[in-house]
């Protein structure tokens, strides 16, 4: 996956431009940046849902194209209607053949599809609630389900938009570890948009940050520093190490800053 001097504009305003990015196969990339910086736009460009205004983009040795089985996508969550009575399993199954015309006919294809769906649900530990209505799942269950949906076509790239948002602290850790494990086992390249980098620190190979129209990438130890993050968010941020040497990122009190 790569971007060369790429830029995206809505109307005359560039969201970001002059972006250069190189993601190697099997890498775990976390995309950071303030709200509205264009993180989701980056994922939509990689999905082929939004064209570049300038520059070039390549995904798996070609231009991005929507509907590819090699690319799995987990969109940002809005909560589903709790009265929506459709089984979790059916949502995953639509990942296999949801864009096809006509009715699915019973036979070999349907059996193969069921096997794929079962395997994907199993891989993310969602088999237990596969027959429950999607509207009734908890936040963590829903993220697992969406991950199963993205994995069901056996993709080589996984694009995730804030999969940890609105999860409790434990679910954040569990889901991060799950994504990292599945990606490692299957050699999947991951691009994950996040606000809170803490649960992802153990897994990340590469950090991309988007702010004020610029896209910059680097090694985690280069980017996850108090200086860089403070500049990125325009807000005082400190990076500290806990008793086990793990990195923790904290936003500081606004009192001493020159923030408006």
């Amino acid at each position, binding site marked *: 996956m790569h971007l060369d001097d790429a830029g995206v504009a809505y109307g005359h305003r560039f969201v970001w431009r002059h972006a250069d990015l190189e993601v190697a196969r099997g890498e775990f990339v976390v995309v950071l940046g303030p709200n509205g910086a264009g993180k989701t736009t980056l994922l939509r460009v990689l*999905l082929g*849902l939004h064209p570049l205004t300038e520059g070039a983009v390549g995904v798996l040795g070609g231009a991005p194209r*929507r*509907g*590819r089985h090699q*690319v799995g*996508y987990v*969109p*940002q969550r809005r909560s*589903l*209607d*709790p*009265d*929506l*009575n*459709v*089984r979790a399993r*059916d*949502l995953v199954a*639509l*990942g296999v*053949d*949801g*864009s*096809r*015309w*006509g*009715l*699915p006919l019973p036979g070999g294809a349907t059996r193969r599809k069921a096997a794929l769906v079962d395997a994907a649900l199993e891989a*993310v*530990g*969602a088999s*237990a609630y596969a*027959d*429950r*209505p*999607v509207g*009734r799942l*908890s*936040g*963590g*269950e829903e993220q*697992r389900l*969406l991950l199963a*949906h993205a994995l069901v076509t056996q993709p080589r790239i996984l694009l995730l938009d804030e999969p940890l948002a609105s*999860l*409790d602290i*434990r*679910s954040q850790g*569990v889901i991060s570890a*799950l994504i990292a494990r599945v990606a490692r086992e299957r050699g999947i390249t991951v691009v994950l948009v996040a606000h809170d980098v803490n649960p992802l620190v153990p897994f990340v190979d590469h950090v991309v940050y988007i702010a004020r129209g610029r896209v910059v990438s680097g090694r985690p130890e280069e980017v996850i520093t108090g200086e860089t993050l403070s500049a990125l968010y325009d807000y005082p941020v400190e990076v500290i190490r806990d008793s086990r040497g793990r990195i923790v990122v904290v936003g500081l009190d606004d009192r001493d800053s020159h923030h408006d």
Partner: protein
Amino acid sequence: MVHSHFTWNLVSDWHQLVYYGFMRHALLAGGIAAVLCGAVGVFVVLRGLSFGADTLTHVGFAGASGAVVVGLNPVVGLLGLTALMAVALGALEERLRGRDVVIGMILVLTLGMGLLFLRLYSGYSNETYALLFGAILALSTRDVVVVAVGALIALAALTAMFRPLLFASLDDELAEARGVSVRGVAIAFLLVLAIAVAAATQVIGALLAVALLIAPAATAQRLTGRPGLSVLLSVVIALAVTWGGLALAFWLPYPASFFITSLSTLGYLGVRLLTSGVMPARRRPVPRLAASAEG
């Protein structure tokens, strides 16, 4: 009213029911409209389009009354204007979900226009009454054929787009990423909905048409989480309430539209009461922290 009496001999009752041509027409057209509305309704409910569907029925009323003013067949105006509005709504908004203000305004505007057209024509008449509340017992052979042809086209389209439509109705972003043309599906579905609305208007009238579109589908949704089965159940329920309502109207001196809407609402209420303990509670008893620890 016809001099017929309900007996406990169901065979003789059946013969009474189908003895008259108008009843055969009513059962046939009602049945076709019920099958179509039952199937389309599942997606109306899934997409949260109940209010949008209701608006289309009012648009249909304005179209039909407008057609009468200029001397056209009301069905032409009914289908024409609902289809036009369907395309407009689908093109303007990929989703009508949460657009109640716009939809509500279209609804009252078109109802007002319908009223104007009726005044221009002849003031209140039998035709007004038929458009608003249905005239299922007064359908001609041609009316039945029109409903049948429309339903055939709509059901074929619905079958063809079943999976992309279901996908886009559940989650438009996932569907879009998988290559579904979300906007195309939205417009195509609204066109199918326009045909269903026209068929339902012929049977129970513009003001009540939405009952046949929503109640059976909502009832089926309470009963199963399988989309295919949900469509099947919804069709069966719609058929049952339509034919049941017609039979009641045949023996009792009250309008068929009243029985059809009452039966469908009662069916929904009954199923809702029965299943309230069956479906997993909205608020789950385990706190999320414990729930997420299971895997």
